[in-house]
């Protein structure tokens, strides 16, 4: 049986004043698929995700969510999308539980769901803690918890682990891996950490300067690249990871 495409991005362009942020991107994300938009800072990942979220409008091209356009279906989409923006700061003087309660109310959900989410993201012990007193990792877990409240069909995470220490990053990955096993949620996450894309995602889209440079599964990407390179100049062996692949494609590191 063919899997349903929950997100379709067709030849999308977006510019801001002097910056052409997205230049003709095409994407298709299937139900239950975990997709990474991998690229360095300023590659156009966030703009792309914000257009999928409906926060930005494309200058040209088309974005379809479950086969429908944003226009006229905003309410419906808001109910099925969960998201975590880059650097969102919640209300400092609300506790973890109060923050979840607030956002749960927007989806007409009660405290039971908040308890479940608190358990899922491992913040039970921080239930009464004010947001201002949480560590970076805990805040990120809270943002993830808020994104998961409505059991979203589509989860959009913009740099969910940027600035976190390796331990906190692994904890976030564990939560997402659990989600992958337990639900049919489709995930798009933007990242410039190759390990994140490798660990979490079935499909990786490498973006730079608003364009897709390469896309495919991890195996495909590394394999294809070595073949491509063999045909060209001198070959010193296939890239061992996505960063090496990125260097070969652009001459730069992912996290430059």
């Amino acid at each position, binding site marked *: 049986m063919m899997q349903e495409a929950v997100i379709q991005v067709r030849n999308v362009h977006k510019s801001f004043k002097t910056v052409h942020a997205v230049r003709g991107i095409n994407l298709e994300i299937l139900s239950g698929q975990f997709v990474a938009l991998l690229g360095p800072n300023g590659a156009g990942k966030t703009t792309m995700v914000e257009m999928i*979220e*409906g*926060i*930005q409008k494309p200058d040209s091209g088309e974005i379809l969510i479950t086969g429908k356009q944003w226009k006229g279906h905003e*309410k419906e989409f*808001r*109910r099925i*999308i969960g*998201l975590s*923006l*880059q*650097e*969102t*700061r*919640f*209300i400092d003087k609300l506790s973890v539980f109060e923050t979840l309660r607030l*956002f749960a109310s*927007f*989806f007409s959900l009660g405290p039971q769901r908040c308890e479940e989410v608190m358990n899922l993201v491992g913040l039970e012990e921080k239930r009464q803690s004010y947001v201002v007193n949480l560590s970076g990792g805990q805040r990120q877990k809270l943002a993830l918890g*808020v994104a998961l409240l*409505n059991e979203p069909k589509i989860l959009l995470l913009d740099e969910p682990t940027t600035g976190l220490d390796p331990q906190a990053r692994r904890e976030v990955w564990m939560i997402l891996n659990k989600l992958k096993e337990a639900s049919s949620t489709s995930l798009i996450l933007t990242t410039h950490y190759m390990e994140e894309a490798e660990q979490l995602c079935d499909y990786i889209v490498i973006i730079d300067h608003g364009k897709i440079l390469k896309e495919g599964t991890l195996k495909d990407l590394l394999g294809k690249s070595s073949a491509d390179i063999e045909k060209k100049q001198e070959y010193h062996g296939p890239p061992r990871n996505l960063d090496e692949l990125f260097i070969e494609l652009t001459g730069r590191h992912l996290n430059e």
Partner: protein
Amino acid sequence: MNKLRNSQLWQLILANARELLREPAVLFWGIGFPILMSIGLGAAFTKKKDVTVTIAVIGHNHLLHSQQDSVSVIRTFLLKNKAVLIIGKDGTISRELNVPDEKLGGTTYIFRELNWNTAMTMLKRGNLNLVIDENQGHLRYNFDPMNPDAQLIYLKFSKLMNDPDLIIRPSETEIQPLTVTGTRYIDFLIPGLVCMGVMMSCMWGVSYDIIEKRSKKLLRRMVATPMKRSNFLVALITVRISMNFVESGLLVLFAWLVFHITIQGSIPALLLFFISGNAAFAGIAVFLSCNTSKTEIGNGLINLVSMPMMVLSGIFFSYHNFPAWSIPAIQKFPLTMMADGVRSIFIEGAGFAEIIVPSVIMLTIGVIFFTAGLKIFKWH
């Protein structure tokens, strides 16, 4: 030279200067706004050619020249000093006396013949500070001894009255301190403070709160859910207005306990008027915060709106101290409207009839600004 250019400190200075100069809004708030404030405040407090003070003279025929009347010390004084007689279209009688002073600046005294009730009303509104009451050569100066302006006017005027060339001198003078409720400076101040509190609370509690949430991307995060946008604003305004009720209530309670201030007019009218004032400022606050996500700009916008009103709207002193040409404009400020209305209920005993028009105007201001703000409101 290269060493200097490459130094950390120089590069840091350059970076900071560029950051500042490349943000025109910051430049405006840093340079333009203080200049505008200095112009406004300068108009009010800079040494002027003439300071104009109004003095009420109680009773009849103290100002008009009339041979058949009994002797009046005030009239004699005014006639001797050639004070100009002015009869208003509405029959009001006043005399204007200009006393030049090269060093301290001149003073123009406007003596208005009033009955006691009108004089008290004007005193409560801060339109005058000294009431003179003459009875057969016996002068009584009525003023609030706690009001420094009133003391100064009394001292300056009584000095003039001690002129040795004055043909008729008062047989006796007496100071009558006005400490009855409604005529003291504190009676004037408390309603003004209540209104200023409402304005500041709406500006910072609604406007700044929205801008801060926008700058933290929390607003964007919230509207990415099925949250109704109107609910967000209604909740914010409701909480703020409720807080304003509590804050103002506590201030009035304190003023009642400590200064024995009472509300002489209609309490239901006061509640209606208070809600209208809150609505006006909440609407203005939403409009102010509708577009910017920079807290520095928000800060500046709030100051731009609230500071002039705080200075000009007669919160701490009567706006009649400002030039006459500016008063009609000052009276149209929402804070002036609210302060005048709340004062009239507190100290003049006003009811619905007196406040219904400004109430409707303030509600309309609130609705217009709220609607306009909502039209261009930036949620993302």
